[in-house]
């Protein structure tokens, strides 16, 4: 009999993929539209981690992967990486963000006011089980405030800097098209500021939380106070080759400023991401806050947290351990057996 046919492996992988996909059934435009409508926060999370702002593609990725988040992000990133870079938008300042929600834990009131916006923070987390019995859960109507809060607001750190409580980072005058892009060049250490912020923006939410939480619990030097947390929409302003500037639309963004007392000044940590993702922004800003002077190999050291919150890399490596490792294992076994034999020489086998 001849050797195992090589096509065996190919048939097996094809059938296993079919098995996975058959569980999800047909994917239609309607399903994608429903996912997009029903799960905006999931869409946001996936778009942020994929660093690709497209709600339809994100919804499609979720549909195609059955909600396996790591797979959804990977399929989006693999799509993104092949797309041409047509244009670089103008930088946008915090005070130019169309703000839906912006809260500060540092002051009772802040210039521009506390804007609670949409949140589950003060909801009672009770499952609406009646839905499963046929009732429809209809959200109650929102009553508009008498006076709308201002759409554009300064950052809290600016007020603190004016009052000599904090030194703002120096203004970076790099031209937009020259800003280092971590998706086109390797991340090296000490990391460029742009690379750090971009990596945090793409970080896996759970990973950023795990390490950020470690810092919050005391494995970091700084205890964060949320200076401000903001959910907003950013205008994408591009310049036509003829020189006219125009808006290409708005994207949802979130950002967090956290501060900590250092001597007579406050130190600032910052993170922002595409989509609305509060946990990630606070965690990532906490890591940023703690990173200066962090000990090598500690959870708050830049190299440590940027490598280990990279979701596509970490999840890929984790699941790669499912691949066969016969060769490396065999090689180790050989060394172990040989070392053992050296310690206790085998008696001559009896005839």
């Amino acid at each position: 009999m001849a050797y195992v046919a090589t096509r065996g492996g190919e048939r097996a992988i094809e059938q296993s993929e079919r098995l996975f996909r058959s569980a999800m059934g047909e994917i239609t435009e309607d399903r994608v539209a429903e996912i997009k409508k029903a799960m905006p926060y999931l869409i946001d999370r996936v778009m942020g981690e994929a660093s690709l702002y497209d709600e339809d593609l994100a919804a499609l990725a979720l549909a195609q992967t059955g909600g396996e988040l790591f797979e959804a992000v990977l399929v989006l990133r693999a799509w993104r990486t092949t797309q041409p870079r047509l244009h670089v938008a103008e930088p946008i300042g915090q005070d130019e963000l169309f703000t839906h929600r912006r809260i500060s834990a540092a002051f009772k009131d802040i210039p521009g006011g506390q804007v609670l916006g949409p949140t589950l923070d003060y909801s009672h987390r009770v499952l609406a089980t009646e839905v499963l019995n046929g009732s429809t859960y209809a959200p109650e109507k929102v009553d508009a405030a008498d006076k709308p809060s201002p759409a554009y607001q300064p950052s809290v750190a600016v007020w603190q800097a004016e009052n000599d409580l904090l030194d703002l980072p120096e203004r970076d005058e790099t031209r937009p098209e020259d800003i280092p892009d971590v998706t086109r060049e390797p991340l090296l250490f000490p990391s460029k500021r742009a690379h750090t912020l971009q990596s945090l923006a793409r970080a896996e939410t759970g990973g950023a939380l795990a390490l950020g939480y470690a810092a919050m619990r005391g494995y970091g030097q700084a205890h964060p106070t949320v200076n401000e947390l903001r959910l907003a929409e950013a205008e994408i302003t591009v310049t036509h080759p003829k020189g006219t500037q125009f808006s290409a639309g708005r994207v949802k963004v979130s950002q967090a400023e956290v501060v900590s007392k250092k001597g007579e000044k406050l130190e600032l940590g910052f993170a922002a991401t595409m989509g609305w993702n509060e946990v990630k922004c606070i965690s990532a800003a906490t890591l940023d806050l703690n990173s200066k002077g962090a000990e090598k190999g500690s959870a708050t050291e830049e190299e440590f947290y940027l490598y280990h919150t990279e979701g596509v890399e970490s999840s890929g490596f984790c699941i790669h351990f499912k691949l066969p490792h016969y060769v490396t294992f065999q090689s180790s076994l050989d060394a172990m057996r040989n070392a053992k034999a050296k310690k206790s020489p085998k008696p001559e086998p009896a005839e």
Partner: protein
Amino acid sequence: MSLSTLTKDWEPMSYGFLDASAKREIRRKMLKAVAVPGCQMPYASREVPMARGWGTGGLQVSLTLINPKTTVKVIDQGADDSVNAASIRRFLSRVSGAPTTLDTLDADLIQSRHRIPEEKLREDQVLVLQVPNPEPLRPVQPNMSIARQMHADADYGRMWLQLYEQIVRSGRVMQGASYPSMVNGRHVMTPSPIPRWDVPKLHMAKHLTILSAGREKRIHAVPPYTRVEPLVFDDVPYKVEEHGDLTCFRSGAKGFFMNEIPQDDGSSTYEISDSEYGVKTIKQAEGTETAFGESWYQDGEMS
């Protein structure tokens, strides 16, 4: 200058999946990797439609080198039929139209995880090894920045110390696969996790080897005719796995690297790890005329 000269027609996917700028970056880094053998060169490492850790580094190099006339062979653990090898082979041919082969002799480009085929590679062949961890210093220094400084200083003292401690404790170097090796007398590299059996195949080889770690974003190379010397002490010689006397239970091939197959009775049997070499051995035994290349090992000894 007009828009049509600056742009090109829309394509659903670039040839070979990677877009032109991704390929250019990899090309630039490959040249530097060849220029400084064994030195890890950082690259951006784009996402590809495969999970990180599943050969994305090797894949990016193959996708950059490939053209419709490149005959490609893909192996994992020495086997063409390993599921991930099958998946990579299918992807490479799907996005490039390149023909595939199982026979080492017919291949222009061989992408491999963990093995070098048993037949000697020729000058016209390129071997692309998938690398999970490109840093030989990782066991003694997990921090990449410090490790990079150590390479810059050729500071391999801790590496030697680790090997020495193993000899003192166990009577031998306990490193299994990916045995740290000095390249061109300057850079210590990890030869991807190929077994010790395969490391001598890189020394003064006729072919070019490119090692690429997609997740860790590093590329290094062993050009042809380059010294690759496993780190050993004068009085404790380098030892490959004791597979020289083993015989493949399927094909009867003897004197090559084997997979151990545990048996119900507590014993082990062995099958050749280079699956296509096994197939060829069987074909020959069955009377089919089969071409074998010269093997690196003869009668279980490196020739």
